[in-house]
């Protein structure tokens, strides 16, 4: 039998490698925080300043006081879009998943085939014709135009169907005996029992929505409908942006997600493995 200390020392190379990699992975976060809390002069100084001598919190105030940038609008737009997408995509997908898994009806096979067909189509590729349809519907430069396509996800429907297929039939039968209809079974039995998968997929949906770029860029041609990601992207071509302010903006855009991530990590891991093709 090995003792604990022997075990640790035989594993030492592993920890050396892990530590080196961890430093590399944390580096970009370090750069965000460092740059967001320094002055432009300190950032561009010839020698590298490892830590802000005194944190310049005023960068954040300057960011929101500066009316030349759309940061405030972008944050509000992104928050609204991500929350609405999270709530309704989860609701619609779980409803359809339940119907496909649990309600024997004519046309069920046809609808499922349609969902599978949509699943095959790579999302980003359809943005050109989807823009044309959205322009026809009058959704360009509107919030609902950015939101609408994201409310319907063949992939989520597919995953919910998988989940409800494995749901024990006895519970449903018991509910039926108590006189619940299809709607009642869904509302009183399945929904309360699928909080774990809803949270897991919901967090991924929220993060994906907050971080998406191509569709909001295409639809939001007017600054009032820009999301945070589009606003950040415009900073790259802006001439008047201060470096420190830019990184304060990056920090503001990333921070909510890091908090969500750390709090919900267990769910995210579950969602990632569930949707990663393991099931």
């Amino acid at each position: 039998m090995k003792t604990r200390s022997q075990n640790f020392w035989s594993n030492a190379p592993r920890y050396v490698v892990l530590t080196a990699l961890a430093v590399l992975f944390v580096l970009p976060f370090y750069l965000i925080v460092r740059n967001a809390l320094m002055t432009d002069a300190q950032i561009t100084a010839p020698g590298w300043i490892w830590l802000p001598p005194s944190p310049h919190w005023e960068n954040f105030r300057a960011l929101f006081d500066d009316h030349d940038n759309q940061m405030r609008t972008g944050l509000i737009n992104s928050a609204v879009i991500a929350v609405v997408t999270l709530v309704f995509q989860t609701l619609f997908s779980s409803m359809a998943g339940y119907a496909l898994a649990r309600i024997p009806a004519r046309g069920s096979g046809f609808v499922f085939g349609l969902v599978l067909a949509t699943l095959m189509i790579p999302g980003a590729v359809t943005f050109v014709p989807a823009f044309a349809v959205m322009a026809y519907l009058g959704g360009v430069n509107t919030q609902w135009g950015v939101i609408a396509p994201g409310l319907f996800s063949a992939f989520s429907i597919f995953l919910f169907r998988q989940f409800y297929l494995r749901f024990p039939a006895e519970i449903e039968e018991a509910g039926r005996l108590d006189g619940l209809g299809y709607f009642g079974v869904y509302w009183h039995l399945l929904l309360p029992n699928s909080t774990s998968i809803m949270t897991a997929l919901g967090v991924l949906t929220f993060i994906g929505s907050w971080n998406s770029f191509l569709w909001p860029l295409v639809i939001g041609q007017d600054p009032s409908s820009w999301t945070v990601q589009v606003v950040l992207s415009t900073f790259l071509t802006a001439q008047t942006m201060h470096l420190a302010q830019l990184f304060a903006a990056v920090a503001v855009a990333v921070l909510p997600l890091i908090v969500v991530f750390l709090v919900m990590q267990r769910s995210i891991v579950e969602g990632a493995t569930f949707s990663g093709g393991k099931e």
Partner: protein
Amino acid sequence: MAVTAPLSKIKTAAPARPRPKPGANLAFWAFVAPSLIGLIVFTLVPIGWGFLLSLSHAQNTIHPGHYVGLRNYTDMLTDEAFLRSLVTMVLYSLFIVPLTWGMSLGLALLVDKAGWGKSFWRTVFFIPSAVSYVVASLIWRISLFNGLSFGFANHLLAPFGIHPIAWVGTVDPPWYWLVLVTVRLWLQVGFYMIIFIAGLQEIPKSLYEAAAVDGAAPGWQTLRYITLPQLRNTSFSVLMLNLIAAFQAFDEFYNILGGGGQSAGNASLARPPLVYLYSTALGDQDFGRGAAGAFILTALICAVTLIPGKLFGLGRADK
């Protein structure tokens, strides 16, 4: 139900499919209605519309109608810039897909066997997948790989007597591929690591015990003959997810090499298909050619994702 029902009518096991109850049809359509309408309006209609557009001369208009047959397709397939974008996509995939696979598998093996601080390591490598491509592009372009002396990479290289490298900041920049590949690696390696860790935990311990009894050396031999074969399905789905994502690369190319819709400058150095389609459809307002290009790209993605599965019978869950 009568008590004297024949035996054959009495079900002993639970029915595989519950018999329809009254109102089943109505309930079914009510439950699928929102998703069905949404998928039709925002996926199927655009595909039909896009198909008509791709057969039309649609310059500055989103309406099909001026039909020109397959001219948009032949235009796109003889358009040097579009072909170059497809080559860019393939070359990029050849780098990013195997690298991501190897690194995420390596990280998974390192983290999975780490007795001490396992969840800490997992979190550190997984967190970047919550960061957006736009944010990462900003960090890479403006701080990490800034072409001036205050960029972090240049600062680290300075002691070795290396003058500041321009990275992506000049005309004809050097090493821009390093910037583009590392940004995506940082963003997605942790996500695939999680999938591999889940795969590793599914491998029965008894296999390793049997191998030890048979005298297999722990390390390379067990990895080669047990771990990798057992991870076949996981590897396949990681490679496929990765490839589909690489074929649709947009965000970091748009933001690191240009942005702001400029077709000149560095954007043309490495322009993946989606960036080119974006400038064709929304920059030049040529929706006919944009739609045709989108269909060509979709066909390529479908071919690449379906053929391996058919050839090797992989990707189907045989659990």
